[in-house]
């Protein structure tokens, strides 16, 4: 089932029922992302709330030409979570790597509810070499820095950067049909 459009638009119009609908539809997604980015359960809860407040407040910025509603939710969530994780990493140097092994593993079975964009992304990721997939997963889903990925995998830092950038460039290209072309393209 593809998430029905219009929740964010209705929130932007001040429809409070839509806010509840947003929680029920995307709460699991945001929570799942937060659990991967953050270590502390209390911080996970705080982050989830921060993300939803941000979504309510920024709903009017949703542009279906750039991203599906689900992707937009994940964009907002990831931006918040990345910021939180970077702050947490400064607090907990050394703890990060130790806790990675306890992070939830990724489930490669696509959710029946994921958007067309997510399916396209998954198709693209599956075409990458295994080490590239690993690096992308650690970067995109766990929010690890290039340096941390290098340390954990033993890959040279430059290789990690290359994998992440190439992977994202390919993903962006794969997403493009849903987005607008940029002048430099």
């Amino acid at each position, binding site marked *: 089932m593809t998430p029905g459009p219009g929740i964010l638009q209705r929130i932007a119009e001040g429809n409070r029922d839509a806010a509840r609908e947003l929680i029920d539809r995307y709460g699991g997604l945001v929570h799942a992302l937060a659990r991967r980015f953050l270590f502390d359960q209390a911080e996970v809860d*705080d982050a*989830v*709330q921060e993300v939803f*407040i941000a979504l309510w407040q920024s709903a009017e910025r949703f542009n279906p030409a750039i991203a599906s509603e689900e992707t937009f939710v994940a964009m907002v969530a990831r931006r918040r979570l*990345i910021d939180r994780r970077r702050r947490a990493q400064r607090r907990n140097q050394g703890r990060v790597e130790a806790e990675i092994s306890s992070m939830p593993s990724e489930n490669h079975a696509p959710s029946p509810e994921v958007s067309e964009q*997510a399916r396209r992304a998954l198709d693209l990721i599956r075409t990458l070499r295994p080490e590239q997939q690993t690096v992308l997963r650690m970067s995109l889903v766990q929010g690890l820095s290039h340096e941390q990925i290098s340390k954990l995998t033993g890959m040279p830092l430059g290789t990690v950067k290359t994998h992440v950038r190439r992977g994202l*460039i390919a993903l*962006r290209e794969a997403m493009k049909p849903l987005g607008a072309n940029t002048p*430099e393209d």
Partner: protein
Amino acid sequence: MPPADGHSDPRFARLHELAADRAASGLPPAEEAELHLLLDELGPAGDQIVDQYEAAAAAASVALIGADRPALPAALRARLLEHAGRARPRLAPLLDDAHDHPADRTARVDDARRRRFDWRIAGGWMAAAASLLFALAVWQTRPVVIPMTGDDRRLPLVDGGDLSMGPPAPVVMAGLPGVGNGGSVPAPIAPVQPSRDLNAAARALANFEPPELRLTGLKRSGQPFVTVPLLRPTAGSPAVGEITWFPQRQEGFLDLHDVPTIEAPGDQYQLWIFDALRDDRYPVDGGVFNVPAGQKRVLLPFAARLPVADATSFALTIERAGGVVVSARDRIIAAGVKPQARTAEPADHTPEVPRGGPLQFDAGVPK
């Protein structure tokens, strides 16, 4: 390693790198600043590229998580629903400053001020907003009561960083007036959040130049700012200092004099910023700090990590070390209400440099 898009401008190549890195796991401050400069130069085309990378990373994240989306814990869902009831869509600042045009923000803030007029009169924290004592009384008697059971913890929202300079020195709060909670206030919920992040922005600024020089420079630069005197909650008491807040920069300076060092182990001062666009019960945390022993006057830079659209007032409290998410409001040291917005100061005005020299936030602070 930019995409083969045929564009000859090398700035786009760098933009692709930065946008990809940012979308993946964020950028360090220097590269974030570089990205913003590039976006300023490249205009909407650059913004669009950044958005596309963010969308690509988000879609990939969704795909990689797959079906592993357990339902929200019931307590968390309940809290979200509670917030949803208070949500004010379209009134809040944008979530992403990098793409927030100043004109848009100004328009939103103005719009929000108009819309909030009615509830302000109805009895918000800063209701009529003119009287500091009134404001303090209201704040003190509006405790935050959050049902807490089991692992149900706290409301969020406030995490503005930390001005911590290391463990507080053990001294007494001699000379500070005690402020009770009126006797009728239910036991407040003030869970300690000891692991909040250092205020990286403020520390970074302090690392580059002394706060007093930076303050002078910002005032001379034409940046709009407001100056808010901080008064003790006792009528007729002299000011203990003032806050200079630069709304467009989301940073400020806390200038304190004759505020003693906290000797009690485990206590620190905590600064709070009240935003017109946020629930007054949950002001934004401006950071925690202590005054070094023997320091008569200090100038502390701080920065709001959460966007503050319209800082209406500030308060200084004593809290447990590391700061709290929600203040008990039983040890209010000082507070100040914003008068009216000021314009930039004349270029020939040089503010007084605080006696005793600036605080060094980088000393003893883990990076």
